[in-house]
């Protein structure tokens, strides 16, 4: 019992082949879209590489790039095949290739789906990478004289200005690290020495933040230092003051930004996957209906097209048997001494009457 059979007349077959030809070319374009989405994602992740710890994040854009390229090649080939399928003679050329092609395309479509799902599941890895990366970036903020870290200050400042955020979780993160380099601290001053001594690790901590945390929308000039000290500034209460600095943490800001991008990209890849699946279904119907035409011998006749010849379970079982016997082609059957003709009933045919000839008299 065939799975989802449909009857195809000659005109219907021709139309299907033409439509599939156009759809395959559109799929080449969607393959290029996939490729460019992968490149875009790769560029976006690389732009903030300094702020992310080592992780497997690069696998998602790499997958999309590979899948995009393969999609272009497969759909180009599919377009060529469908173009030739209108003519039954030309179809003979492709007859042996079509089934492997369909199987390959089916597995390829699965990988497109995997790519789309990877986009959505990148969440956890991203959060971890950002937490560790931002923490390190803030720690090395002051090391503008250490090679390899001298641009971290600029990166963090530009990040906080662009994404309108401050610190990892909030602005208080800056109170817990020394972000002013020792090069700019006057060690001869009493105040500096006291502050260094009061800290266990000898760090110069203060309740101040870098200028990049300043909120542009604040009606008053920015208060960066002595933030928690209400008496240091006129008409200021740090509990109620919300417009002075950016309140959002940079981890949340970056996570939201990347999640938005990933969701949009994932949605586009899902839509492309559905499109590829429909094209694959069309090609399968075309292949089975054309094979049935060849089986019936008349190029103009009506034929059936189906997804699977037998039901799902039987097809799976027969395929499994084929795979099982693939490994057995050089094994000998020992039950009949290796001779395959033992114990076989005679099947000789003796002419139209089927009368066995009389045995010839033997000379004595």
């Amino acid at each position, binding site marked *: 019992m065939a799975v989802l059979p449909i009857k195809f007349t000659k005109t219907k077959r021709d139309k299907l082949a033409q439509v599939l030809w156009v759809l395959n070319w559109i799929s080449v374009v969607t393959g290029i879209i996939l490729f460019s989405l992968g490149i875009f994602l790769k560029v976006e992740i690389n732009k903030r590489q300094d702020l992310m710890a080592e992780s497997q994040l690069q696998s998602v854009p790499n997958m999309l790039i590979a899948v995009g390229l393969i999609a272009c090649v497969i759909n180009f080939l599919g377009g060529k095949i469908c173009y030739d399928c209108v003519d039954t003679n030309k179809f003979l050329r492709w007859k042996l290739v079509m089934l492997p092609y369909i199987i390959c395309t089916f597995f390829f479509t699965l990988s497109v789906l995997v790519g789309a799902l990877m986009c959505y599941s990148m969440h956890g890895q991203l959060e971890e990478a950002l937490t560790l990366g931002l923490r390190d970036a803030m720690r090395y903020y002051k090391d503008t*004289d250490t090679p390899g870290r001298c641009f971290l200050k*600029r990166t963090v400042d530009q990040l906080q200005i662009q994404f309108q955020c401050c610190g990892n979780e909030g602005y208080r993160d800056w109170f817990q690290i020394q972000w002013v380099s020792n090069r*700019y601290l006057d060690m001869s001053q009493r105040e500096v020495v006291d502050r260094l001594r009061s800290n266990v690790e000898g760090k110069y901590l203060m309740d101040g933040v870098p*200028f990049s945390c300043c909120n542009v929308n604040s*009606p*008053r*000039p920015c208060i960066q230092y002595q933030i928690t000290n209400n008496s240091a500034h*006129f008409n200021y209460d740090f509990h109620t003051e919300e417009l002075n600095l950016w309140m959002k943490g940079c981890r949340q800001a970056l996570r939201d930004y990347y999640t938005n991008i990933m969701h949009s990209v994932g949605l586009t890849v899902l839509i492309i996957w559905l499109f590829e699946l429909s094209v694959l279904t069309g090609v399968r119907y075309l292949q089975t209906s054309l094979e049935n035409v060849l089986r019936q011998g008349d190029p103009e006749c009506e034929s059936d097209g189906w997804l699977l010849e037998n039901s799902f379970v039987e097809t799976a079982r027969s395929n499994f048997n084929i795979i099982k016997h693939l490994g057995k082609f050089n094994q000998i059957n020992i039950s009949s001494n290796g001779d395959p003709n033992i114990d076989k009933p005679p099947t000789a045919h003796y002419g139209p009457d089927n009368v066995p000839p009389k045995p010839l008299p033997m000379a004595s």
Partner: protein
Amino acid sequence: MVVGKMKFTFQKRVKLAQGLWLLSWLATLGGAVTFTLGCFLKTELRRRGEVMDNTDIHCVPNTLMIVGLASMGINYFASRICQDALDPGRFPRWKTFLKPYFGCSVFFTTLMLISVILSYAMKGSLETSLKIGLKNGIRFYKDTDTPGRCFQKQTIDHLQMEFQCCGNNDYKDWFEVQWISNRYLDFSSKEVKDCIKSNVDGRYLVDGVPFSCCNPSSPRPCIQYKITNNTAHYNYDHQTEELNIFIRGCREALVNYYMGLMNTIGAVVLSVFLLQSSVLASVRLLQTSMEAVAGQENVEIETEGYLLEKGVKETFMEYVDPVLKLLLLNQVTPPEAKPEAGATGTTTTTS
């Protein structure tokens, strides 16, 4: 005296028409590009409109948009004309249309050239406008509670961060203006009272700048206040320190940005102008060479084409006269009134 006379064989006419068709579609595209560039320039100018005193500079993008639209129309008609040109049956219906068409086309093409010249010439006006606008912006920086000026602070801060500049001419402009509002000054403190008393106008001036002047590329945390006081900060010399705050003035930054934009646009529009002039010249040559063919039996004869039948001045007067007549239509001509007055005078004396 004929201008630009050329001989045209039949084959040459056909080639001219084909080349012209392609050229006119290219020129239509050029007109669309001009229109888009005009829209883009207008948007960019409006984005920073708050720091500009007047809108004189907007004449450049406005002209570009008008010229772009006109150019698309001119070149579309050019392509239609050249399509009909080789067919002697369909060509005559364009006859009455051609004279006003050429008049308009030449007018708009010269307007295109004028817009290119304007884009280079308006630099001075732009600079003056920005100077006054930025001066006001800095002056009203602190007035975040005055309606109509409450977003000046935000505008100036965004501007300084985006264009990496500080102040009008340079950062010292901030020393001459009170940019900290009185709402946030503690008038009971001695330091504040001294500062205000020492100033003639009673303003609170500091040698400090807003945080938006801070340079992210600086290796040390930003020094915003007491900039000129070397002893207030460790290991600091304000004469040699270049990376701490942005040195450049915002007027210079903005003028450079807009002039760069307008130079690029000017170059593109100039090439579109050359393309359109060649289209117009080709249409004129095609039209004049086809006119000689009209009414002839043999269509494949060799004809002459020219750009202008008479000299430049005479042709110009020929076009301008109808326009002048239109404008003088409702003026009464004095010589005619005199004999009338004389006639009425004689009639009154006789009666």
